[in-house]
């Protein structure tokens, strides 16, 4: 076993532990911070696989934007210090365990079936290559995804805005 193997096993352990803490802690902000650790460990694992672009996207989009928006949302709606009783829900524990175990099973099965131990890319994905592929071979799915995102954005704004034609901007 090489040093890098030991390091990646250590990271996987860290990932597992922080992932468990995300769902077991009864404090919303603590859960968000443990989610940061989970995502950061995932990013380091991607760097070990020399997929630097994916790692940095994880940091920029998930840690830098999603978690920040999550914290912002929690703080702006309700920000109790200390544990939140609503988060401890004993009724659905069995159901939740079943769902998460089955998702784990399905993903493991699919990944092992598809890839097993075949090496897909020997060298790290160069960003230039990634950009070229995204804008040539995969240009249609790429545009489609941006269209879906635009739709989601407009939908979100429409749902969030309560004003109608009678109210002008000064009254909001």
């Amino acid at each position, binding site marked *: 076993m090489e040093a890098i193997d030991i390091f990646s096993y250590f990271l996987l352990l860290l990932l597992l532990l922080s992932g468990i803490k995300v769902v077991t802690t009864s404090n919303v*902000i603590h859960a968000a*911070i443990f989610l940061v650790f989970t995502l950061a460990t995932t990013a380091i694992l991607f760097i070990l696989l020399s997929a630097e672009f994916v790692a*940095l996207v994880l940091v*920029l989009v998930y840690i*830098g934007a999603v978690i*920040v928006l999550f914290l912002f949302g929690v*703080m702006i709606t309700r920000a109790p*210090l200390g544990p939140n009783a609503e988060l401890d829900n004993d009724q659905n524990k069995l159901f939740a365990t079943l769902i998460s175990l089955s998702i784990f099973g399905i993903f493991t099965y699919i990944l092992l079936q598809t890839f097993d131990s075949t090496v897909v890319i020997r060298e790290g994905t160069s*960003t230039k290559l990634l950009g070229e592929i995204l804008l040539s071979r995969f240009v249609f799915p790429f545009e489609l995804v941006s269209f879906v995102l635009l739709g989601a954005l407009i939908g979100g704004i429409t749902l969030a805005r309560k004003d109608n034609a009678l109210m002008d901007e000064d009254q909001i």
Partner: protein
Amino acid sequence: MSFSSELLIKVLVVLATAPVMALGLTLLEVKGSAWMQRRPGPLHVGLRGFIFPLATAAKYFQKETIIPKDVDEPVFKWAPAWVIAAVVGLFTIIPLSPTLIVRDLELGVFFLLAISSISTIGVLTAGWSSANKFSLMGGLRAAGQLIAYELPLILSVVGVVIQAETMSTVGIVEKQIEFGFPFVIAGQGIAFIIFMIAATAEMMRTPFDMPIGESELTMGFMTEYSGIRFLIFYISEYINLFVMCAIASTLFLGGYHIPLLPTEWVNFYGPLVLIGKTFTLAFLLIAIRWSFPRFREDQLQTLAWKVLIPLSLLNIMVTAIMKVVF
């Protein structure tokens, strides 16, 4: 040299450089403001005011760390760590010369944008965990502001990346040397102004200091911090000022090179040139800080969403079209 010893040396050098640069900028800010506003203290007291930053640092070191009773202790205690870790991490991609750089990453500029977004978490958790209305308000204002100004910051850099055809910081400087002019003259002038405005807002400096706003929110998200933890927030503000100005000089002002200087000697004059450019830009921001009043919250959001973001998108479009045409 083995990888680990090289890494150790690099980390130690960065950890030594960052506070020195912060001290230099603190001195520049204190003396600049004293010069602009005729304050006798920093100009005359103690070796003509030169030991002032050291005295400030010593003051915070010997102060008692007060932790209020109701705070969320682990979150409260670690909040400054997020900020300083993110800021010091950015030293990785600052090229003082083609060889004097921690690591010339292929995705240098992208790394900058990704890592700088981490400090927002520190600011938000600091505001939340303090158990204080003013801190929470400061944290919320900070979040709104940092989210809004991260976009123009990213989008203004995209123009440079398109023009340079690379994201590595050394590559961008080399492209400017090859071109003969820095990018601020050669087509990215608007992007430079947008970058500087967005960077000032990201640093939460006046006129964008609503999250701190001492006259309305005492000290915003930093209200409950004292002693060494406050010092960490304070130092990271100045390290961030250095990093942002250094990045702006690298991306827009030609980095470690000045036109007409011989490129063979770049390893000797490079660090001096970059630090000189950085301190000049920092002085500009300091002058702005001590001459302009604070924005109003809605004006700030309007500026970001209705002016800077459309303008930077337009800049990307024009740059891309010019790239294809020429």
